[in-house]
């Protein structure tokens, strides 16, 4: 039961990638995802890996940190590889055979392809959050979502809610921790009994959490209304962000490369 203090993935170094506008990087991630899924051969993966490598080098993010995202997937990726490669009575080229089990040549190649694709996908997209602060991203998201307001999508409200949620994550986590400790002091046990009993132990944790949450929501809404918050059109901002010529150039050139790679290879 521990709440990490330093939190988030942002790597605070100065690099040409860090200074790109958040919207540029979000656009690149979207194109990158499409590109990765269009690729259907190892040459394509190699080209995509080259793109990721170039971006990573420009971003000044330590490779160790950039690869951290894969660690959580190690188990899943190993399962994927094994499921592709190991067959009962393999029909095609068999590399190794142990009884009815065999390692299938084509299966192994397929497995490696999917594993490499997932690794590139995760490393490439994580560059966005490694080089952009959550505040910049929230701002960028609001701008990207603004055209949706024409379809009555509440972009301004979503940005407001996102800001509130980000602000209250540490508070809520501390509160949860406090309630767990308090209920433990009153004799609640989270480490005894079967599955049902252990899960049930969380009822006296969840109920006060939600009661506090409903109360806090009323207080916060009242406080915002007393301060005349009305959101929506006409709201000004302290640090407006703009896409520069450099942003457009990077976005267009990189997108062109990714799409060409995706379609050709």
């Amino acid at each position, binding site marked *: 039961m521990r709440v990490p203090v330093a939190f988030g*993935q942002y790597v605070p170094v100065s690099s040409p990638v860090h200074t790109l506008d958040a919207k540029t990087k979000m656009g690149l991630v979207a194109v990158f995802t499409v590109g990765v899924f269009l690729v259907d051969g190892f040459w394509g993966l190699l080209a995509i890996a080259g793109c990721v490598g170039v971006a990573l080098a420009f971003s000044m993010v330590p490779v160790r940190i950039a690869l951290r995202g894969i660690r959580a997937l190690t188990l899943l990726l190993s399962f994927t590889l094994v499921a592709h490669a190991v067959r009962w009575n393999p029909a095609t080229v068999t590399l190794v055979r142990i009884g009815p089990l065999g390692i299938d040549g084509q299966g192994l190649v397929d497995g490696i392809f999917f594993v490499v694709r997932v690794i590139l996908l995760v490393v490439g997209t994580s560059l966005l959050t490694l080089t952009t602060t959550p505040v910049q991203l929230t701002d960028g998201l609001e701008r990207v979502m603004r055209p949706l307001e024409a379809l009555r999508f509440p972009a301004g409200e979503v940005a407001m809610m996102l800001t509130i*949620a980000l602000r209250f*994550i540490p508070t809520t986590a501390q509160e949860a921790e406090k309630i767990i400790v308090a209920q433990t002091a009153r004799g609640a046990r989270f480490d005894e009994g079967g*599955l049902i009993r252990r899960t049930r132990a969380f009822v006296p944790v969840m109920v006060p959490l939600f009661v506090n949450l409903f109360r806090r929501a009323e207080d916060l809404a009242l406080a915002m209304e007393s301060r005349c918050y009305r959101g929506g059109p006409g709201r000004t901002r302290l640090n407006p962000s703009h896409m520069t010529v450099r942003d457009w150039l990077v976005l267009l050139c990189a997108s062109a490369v990714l799409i060409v790679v995706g379609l050709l290879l």
Partner: protein
Amino acid sequence: MTRSRLLPFVRAALVAALIAASALVTVPIGPVPVTLQVLVIAVAVLVLSPAEAAAAVGLYLLIGAVGMPVFSGGGAGAGVLAGPTGGFLFGFFAGALAGAAIRRAIEATGGQRRGLLADIVALVVLVLVTYVAGLAQFAAVSGRSIADAFAVAVAPFVVIDLAKAAVAMLVARALRKAGLGDRVPPPA
């Protein structure tokens, strides 16, 4: 007091914060550390309006996408959403919306008497939608059959998910007794 226009927005934002925070507080139950995200989402489906529940889960996904380590196992970033397990996260969103909407629809036909039925159906819908979306993306991204995906990504978690759903019903009942939660406006 008149109902606040801002209240639904603020409430959804705070529930999103709670879902995110519940990923940070891990409780060591047995060999696998258990997080309470699924439990919080299930309670949200039972005590929030469909729009609030969907907004809360959607915000949680956005928070994760912008880089806060709020996905299971401290994952973060758009990569998780695009990766093999991302379908379960999108499934939470669709499931929360569908579950809460169905609960409301059933409550509207029978009021208090159908409360238990409404809760059970809502949670079954939440779990099923989550599994279907999760399986589809898992199979597509990792290039494996649906049956394989089921064995790895769903089967080990069915029992614990059902246990969490049952606990969510107990929590929702306690909250309703305290006069909180999503109440269907009485028919005019």
